């Protein structure tokens, strides 16, 4: 059965440090062929005796549909908790169970409009492949990469190959402009006359990117990162409030309805302080005196 997604017993064939991150290459036959930029994979962690049952999700950095090993998928992993530490301590030839590709990819413009791609931290991982696809379609592409500090930037050199221009920001000024991507984004959009801003990174950044893009006449397409238990649409843990084409706000699963959303559709007003509330006007929101 193949409905655009596969579960395959993969194998790690390369693992290397990249600044604060680990860049992993996995053999995952079939997944590469189906994937598009913006989609993600869900990896099982911990092995046969694992107490960590839930899969970990990672944006697909790039794919190599065929080659010596069969199709491979690359991901960029920040080691944080138990699962990402396990993944980043794997050795070459260790098995990794892969489900993917998952989620909706970045929608591509039908016309060759200029685009700006904004990545925060490891959020830049899916953007290089996106840049290549956009340029193949004739879109001029610039990138804006930001992070807390230089070691948390991912892919600056690669960006210079994949894009027509690159702007770098760091919170501490250790590389590029001191400050946030949103500080420089408006100028880039204006200079390029960009029609679309693609962004991937922390929620706060996605919100500012959306605001800046709107203010400068561009559409924001943002890839969100919500806590996911299943990644495949069956658990309802990964929801966020999104206004639909009909104007109605629903709690939408970001793993199947996203992770890419139009920024101006996301109800940023409900998101903050590590919590996403249900807006009072959302479909089926609890109303005073009981549901």
């Amino acid at each position, binding site marked *: 059965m193949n409905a655009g997604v596969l579960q395959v017993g993969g194998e790690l064939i390369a693992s290397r440090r990249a600044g604060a991150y680990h860049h992993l290459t996995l053999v995952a036959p079939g997944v590469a062929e189906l994937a598009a930029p913006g989609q993600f994979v869900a990896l099982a962690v911990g092995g046969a005796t694992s107490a960590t049952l839930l899969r970990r999700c990672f944006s697909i950095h790039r794919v190599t549909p065929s080659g010596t090993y069969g199709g491979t998928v690359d991901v960029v992993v920040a080691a944080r908790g138990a699962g990402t530490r396990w993944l980043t301590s794997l050795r070459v030839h260790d098995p990794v169970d892969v489900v993917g590709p998952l989620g909706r990819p970045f929608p591509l413009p039908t016309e060759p409009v200029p685009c700006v791609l904004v990545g925060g931290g490891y959020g830049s991982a899916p953007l290089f492949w996106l840049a290549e696809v956009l340029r193949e379609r004739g879109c001029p592409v610039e990138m804006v990469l930001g992070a807390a500090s230089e070691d948390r930037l991912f892919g600056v050199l690669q960006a210079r190959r994949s894009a027509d221009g690159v702007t770098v920001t760091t919170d501490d000024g250790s590389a590029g402009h001191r400050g946030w991507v949103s500080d420089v984004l408006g100028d880039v959009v204006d200079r390029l006359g960009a029609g679309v801003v693609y962004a991937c990174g922390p929620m706060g950044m996605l919100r500012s990117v959306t605001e800046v893009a709107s203010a400068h006449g561009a559409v924001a397409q943002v890839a969100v990162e919500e806590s996911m238990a299943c990644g495949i649409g069956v658990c309802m843990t*990964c929801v966020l409030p999104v206004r639909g084409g009909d104007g109605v706000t629903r709690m939408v699963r970001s793993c199947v309805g996203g992770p890419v959303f139009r920024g101006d559709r996301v109800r940023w007003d409900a998101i903050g302080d590590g*919590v996403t509330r249900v807006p009072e006007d959302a479909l089926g929101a609890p109303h005073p005196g009981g549901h």
Partner: protein
Amino acid sequence: MVDMRTVLAGTTLPNPVMTASGCAANGTELNRFFPVAELGAFVTKTVMRDPRSGRPTPRMAETPSGMLNSIGLQGPGIDAFCEHDLPWLEQQGARVVVSVAGNTAEEFGEVVQRLVGSPAWGCVVGVEANISCPNVANRGLVFACDPVSSERVVRIVRARVPAEVPVLAKLTPDVTDIVTIAGAALGAGADALTMVNTLLGIVIDTDLLRPRLAGVTGGLSGPAIRPVAVRAIWQVTAAMRSGTLPTAPVVGVGGVRTGTDALELVAAGASAVQVGTATFNDPSAPRRVLTELEAEAARHGVERFADLVGIAHERMVRP
């Protein structure tokens, strides 16, 4: 080949493996990994009368060999369910157990009434009354914590479901004496019992020093709770075998990840088994568990799956 059929209060299912409510959505997503019609039955996400947004996020926390969830019964409401979800399942040829709930006992009845009127009702092989959801902010009360409320809900549901379709009452393990609640549900006409729903739990975020779930409490599920599920099934089955409770099939759920896990629940007394949280680890888990359970039955040399149901009560060592 072992005969894997199982009988659920009159309805014969081709095999005893089901999804668990809320762990498989309404089928379209899992159908990408295996044909959901191959399962003994597909159990839908609990549906209520009105559309529900569910709770704020974070709605989940991973725990050792399990997870905590607080979805808050997000769903489209019974009308949308009958219009979109049930017909799709019928089209696949799935046998469907519809999980229903209400904020009040009467609302359970309304949901069932609309369900029974659905054009796709024909694919329904059971109605599971989720009287045990600890997530609904119903003044903290859970129906299945109290025999009287359990009885009321089951009576209303049983009255509205046509006689030939079994009603399952889904119990919570968070009670002092599950046999009493089981008795109340059976007394009110439940044809079968589904055991168990999640255990109430809390996880604290040790960075933020506050509950990790926006809704504070959540339901604990996964392999971590399997011994509790097996115990609940065992106790109720033992009460049936000793004549304390009327005999009725038990559908086991809680921590099943493999065929041997499923066999634990079956040997303790379950006539069918639901696979929940394990699906998040492995999207093909329900289908795989069926294959593995079949292999286990063959390994034990039984001809019929039914011969394994409750077998541990007979093989128990008496001191």
